[in-house]
């Protein structure tokens, strides 16, 4: 190898090294053994809104307005670095000019020059502020999800406790419980987004298991009436109670029976939007109020009056039950 070749090689590897450093997306700074800046890459200048002139030759602690003069970082440089050749992701929080309070992860690598023995320190600095924020947000979300699961378990437990057991076979109990459980699941599934559920989709989802058992069920109503997920759950449970009752004792228990469900969005006396839903059974056996109020009837009343803040009018007619529900949207 002649001198020209060696020179080219050295120049090329220098150019290569410089390009690598310059293309690094994370800020990188090279310090001498007194922690003065020997060099820094463009990402460093960009991230900390500073310039080459302000940076090179300055002690790290004096950069900018002294924002790098941080106890944790001084500890890292004075104590940790001399004892180990590298440090990975050392967390530093500080107030930086132009960019405000940030969380930085500092990694350091000590290098010795092979010939002169000069010791230099490479510091890479990753701005982890947003990542940390995202981690915190994720933790909150996971916590929220945990509470929702607990709540849902409590709801399921309440349904299991309140489903009638007296004088019933295990099989009947299971079917009654699962009917309510499925209605809950269907109502939740309709609430696809955090904010709302569609009334029409809810009615169809909850009534779907009954469609195969009876052909004479009709739906009539405006599309796209938005309900809160909470309202959807209550209304879903109400519809299920009406449906299961119709199947056992009402119009859906006989081949000729009919069920017409209609809904609309109207205005109450104060001009506030009000949901109206009518449930009309016909051609069925004569309906009569239950001798003792069962859990199903109680659930319908409670969900409508206490939770939905509306009214449920149940009218037991000669050829089937008619229920009119109204509640504020």
């Amino acid at each position, binding site marked *: 190898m002649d001198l020209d070749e060696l020179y080219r090689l050295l120049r090329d590897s220098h150019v290569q090294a410089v390009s690598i450093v310059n293309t690094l997306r994370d800020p990188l700074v090279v310090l001498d053994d007194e922690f003065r800046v020997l060099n820094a890459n463009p990402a460093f200048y960009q991230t900390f809104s500073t310039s080459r002139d302000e940076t090179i030759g300055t002690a790290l602690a004096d950069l900018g307005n002294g924002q790098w003069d941080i106890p944790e970082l001084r500890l890292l440089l004075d104590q940790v670095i001399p004892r180990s050749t590298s440090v990975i992701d050392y967390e530093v929080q500080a107030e930086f000019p132009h960019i405000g309070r940030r969380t930085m992860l500092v990694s350091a690598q000590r290098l010795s020059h092979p010939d002169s023995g000069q010791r230099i320190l490479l510091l890479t600095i990753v701005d982890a502020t947003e990542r940390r924020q995202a981690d915190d947000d994720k933790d909150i979300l996971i916590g929220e999800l945990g509470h929702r699961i607990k709540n849902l378990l409590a709801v399921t437990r309440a349904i299991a*406790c309140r489903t009638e057991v007296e004088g019933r076979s295990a099989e009947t109990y299971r079917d009654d419980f699962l009917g309510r459980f499925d209605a809950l699941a269907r109502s939740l599934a309709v609430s696809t987004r955090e904010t709302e559920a569609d009334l029409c989709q809810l009615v169809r989802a909850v009534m779907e298991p009954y469609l195969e058992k009876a052909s004479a069920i009709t739906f009539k109503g405006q599309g796209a009436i938005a309900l809160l997920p909470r309202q959807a759950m209550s209304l879903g449970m109400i519809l299920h109670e009406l449906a299961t009752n119709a199947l056992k004792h009402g119009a859906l228990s006989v081949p000729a029976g009919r069920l017409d469900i209609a809904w609309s969005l109207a205005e109450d006396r104060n001009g506030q939007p009000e949901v109206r839903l009518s449930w009309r059974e016909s051609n069925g056996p004569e309906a009569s109020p239950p001798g003792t109020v069962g859990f199903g009837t109680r659930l319908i009343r*409670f969900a409508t009056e206490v939770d939905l803040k509306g009214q449920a009018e149940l009218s037991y007619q000669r050829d089937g039950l008619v229920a009119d529900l109204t509640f504020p949207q």
Partner: protein
Amino acid sequence: MSDKPAPRPPGNRVSVLVVEDEMMIALDVQMMLEDNGYTVLGPAGSVEGALRLLDELRPDVAVLDGNLRGRPVIPVARRLRSLEIPFVLSSAYDIFTFDGSDVLAGAENVQKPVSENRLIAALQRALS
């Protein structure tokens, strides 16, 4: 809030204000309490609803969910404290970390899901 203190609900039974936003749980707790001879006030599903009820009637004791549609139950607990009405908590949340949760100090949390025995025992302790 009116200046006159709110009256007790009619009847001789011990009255319990139930504050709970989950419909099925509210109904379950109401039925538990009625089965044990209590009168239920509410259930209220929101902070405003609970405060409105307290303007009108004075319960003997209350059972509070920790979080009502995303709002901590703290203002209700504060009003109960000022009325010197004891209360127990039934919450899946770690409510003692909420802002202003010092007002909850000393109140028993029967957790969630709530068992009938635990709730009734806690109410009796709160009343004694």
